[in-house]
């Protein structure tokens, strides 16, 4: 079913959580990820964008089988992860690593940098202290840290950017084929963020690493991604090549996200004033019927409430789940603003 050159194939993945109503909270089932499918080819970077609660992080964890998704398939390097038993899963994860948002929270504060980077090597049976230490030095140099000065420090003696480099060195230790970056640079200041983004790019060029790059920042995702997936309330609403998706979004939600970004035109230095999307995001406990974006969508009609739109390909490689996708003219929001 899946082509040979796909590194990762995600098919119809579902993740639901039951929210128990205590202390006046409403109970119900949160559809954190609903029927999501996509592929990542070897050497490719897929960006995933979406707002809080869109299911980006849950999706990343479902791929890692932590926790396992309720249904669907996750095929990584030919292995169906959802069916693997504990031991085989751990072995498969060797090539599938993750970098988290909070670098301080994901590193043991009492360990030295060298120990932190050595841990995955020891855990996956790289024998011999000397060999491991040599590899640790190599990894620290690769991520731009000095093994002699930074190696002996503990996480609290490092800055946020340096900690994130340690987390990346840990992820790289076992030469993974795919690294999942969940808001990996979001907590960093812009100058440090640029350094870490360049590091990701260099690793991609030199080692051919693939990334699943999750972020709420659309400009950032554009910078690193070959293809981009847009998530909204647990569903994949649009996926396609970065270039096409940013220049000609087909889903009104993608257009709204793009129009919400404040920024500067790099040529003129003039500011882009965002066009806000009205209304509040719907509750994930009670998503609207049909298309889940319809309550905020300016193009919504009766059909959007009755029938859930399926993903279909409208431009080469670009799929959208919308009954009334935007045409060549682009965004309804942007048109109003331009005049």
């Amino acid at each position, binding site marked *: 079913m899946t082509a040979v050159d796909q590194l990762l194939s995600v098919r119809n993945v579902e993740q639901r959580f039951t929210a128990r109503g205590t202390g006046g909270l409403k109970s119900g089932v949160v559809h954190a990820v609903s029927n999501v499918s996509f592929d990542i080819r070897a050497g490719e970077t897929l960006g995933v964008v979406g707002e809080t609660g869109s299911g980006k992080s849950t999706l990343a964890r479902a791929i890692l089988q932590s926790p396992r998704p309720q249904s669907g398939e996750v095929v990584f390097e030919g292995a169906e992860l959802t069916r693997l038993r504990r031991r085989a899963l751990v072995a498969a994860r060797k090539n599938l690593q993750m970098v988290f948002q909070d670098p301080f929270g994901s590193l043991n504060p009492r360990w030295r940098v060298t120990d932190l980077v050595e841990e995955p090597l020891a855990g996956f049976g790289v024998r011999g202290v000397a060999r491991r230490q040599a590899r640790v030095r190599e990894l620290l140099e690769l991520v731009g840290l000095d093994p002699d000065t930074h190696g002996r420090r503990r996480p609290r003696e490092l800055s946020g950017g340096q900690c994130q480099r340690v987390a990346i060195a840990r992820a790289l230790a076992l030469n993974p084929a795919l690294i999942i970056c969940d808001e990996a640079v979001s907590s960093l200041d812009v100058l*440090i963020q640029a350094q870490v983004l360049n590091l990701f790019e260099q690793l991609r060029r030199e080692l051919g690493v693939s990334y699943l790059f999750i972020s709420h920042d659309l400009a*950032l995702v554009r910078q690193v991604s070959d293809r981009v997936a847009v998530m909204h309330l647990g569903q994949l609403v649009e996926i396609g090549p970065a270039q096409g998706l940013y220049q000609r979004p087909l889903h009104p939600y993608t257009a709204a996200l793009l129009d919400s970004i404040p920024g500067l035109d790099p040529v003129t230095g003039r500011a882009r004033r965002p066009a806000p999307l009205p209304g509040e995001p719907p509750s994930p406990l009670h998503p609207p019927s049909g298309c889940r974006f319809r309550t905020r969508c300016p193009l919504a009609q009766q059909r959007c409430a009755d029938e859930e739109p399926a993903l279909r390909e409208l431009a080469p490689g670009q799929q959208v789940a919308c009954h009334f996708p935007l045409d060549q003219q682009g965004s309804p929001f942007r048109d109003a603003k331009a005049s």
Partner: protein
Amino acid sequence: MSIDRAGNDVLVTDPESATRSLLEVTDLRVYFASARQRVHAVNGLSYRLQAGRMLAIVGESGSGKSVSARALLGLLPHTAQVSGSVRFDGTELVGLPEREMRRRRGADIAMVFQDPARSLNPTMRIGTQITEAVRAHSDLDRNAARDRAVELLRLVRLAAPQRRFFEYPHQLSGGMRQRVMIAIALAASPRLLVADEATTALDVTTQAQIMELLLELQQRLGMAVIMITHDLGLAASYAQDVIVMYAGRAVEYAQASTLFTRVRMPYTRALLGALPQLEREPHTLLPVIPGQPPDLSALPAGCPFRPRCDAASDDCATAPPFAEHEPGHWWACWHPAEETSQDGASR
């Protein structure tokens, strides 16, 4: 004082200095003293703000933007040593007794913080919290204060204010909570609102809504706004004037339209260059500058940006004055970038 103060005592004067400023900050300095070290968070910050304008203070973590804003309201912990002058409408705020400061806080200058969930009391209905703020600054009776609270909720465009009045913070989304925080800040009709990273925790679509609201309130109520942000794009899109801070001092200041089209300070240029842009091609390397932000407990003499600056020379061992080099455009640099559009900088 252990740090170099040469050049930083220059007073910022606006082109329209004839009109009286609402806020005049002159040589503001804040340091935090502990037994082992002194952390110099703000090192001689001066600026003026006219009534009804929106000023953005941008900078990275540790640039002193938040500390300088909290110093305006006297909201710093007692380990902080504040010197310099903050004049609000002619009254000196630095060194004001706490009782007097308390009366003015909220009434003259109000503040909205980054995390609305932590700024609201989770066990109180939001209506009660707003009413409390209204009554703290006026002698309205309970019913009148309640009416005023509902009116404030309407002002910040919270949908169904009558119903929301009786809800608890956890029942509201992040954007709605921030609207409630703004309503509380507006309770005593302040003439200056300080928004400290007020939209940073929000999603982009919600951020755009809240910024539109702040802009509308600024215009409708004639209120001055200081927005503190790390996001240059946000500052460029909404603020009229922009101050860029580095290591506790202002390094560049101009109207937003001037600043971002004619960047002179190498630090500002580096910040803009490192910003991911929608227009940039994928997989390009960003122009980065080496190094880390300076250690505020051991600031080098001279220009604090010198160790990371590629235009640095021996001159930079002396701190460059922060001065008005072009009409309305201030910077602190011996080797400002040539005047080009930002074109060259961000590619």
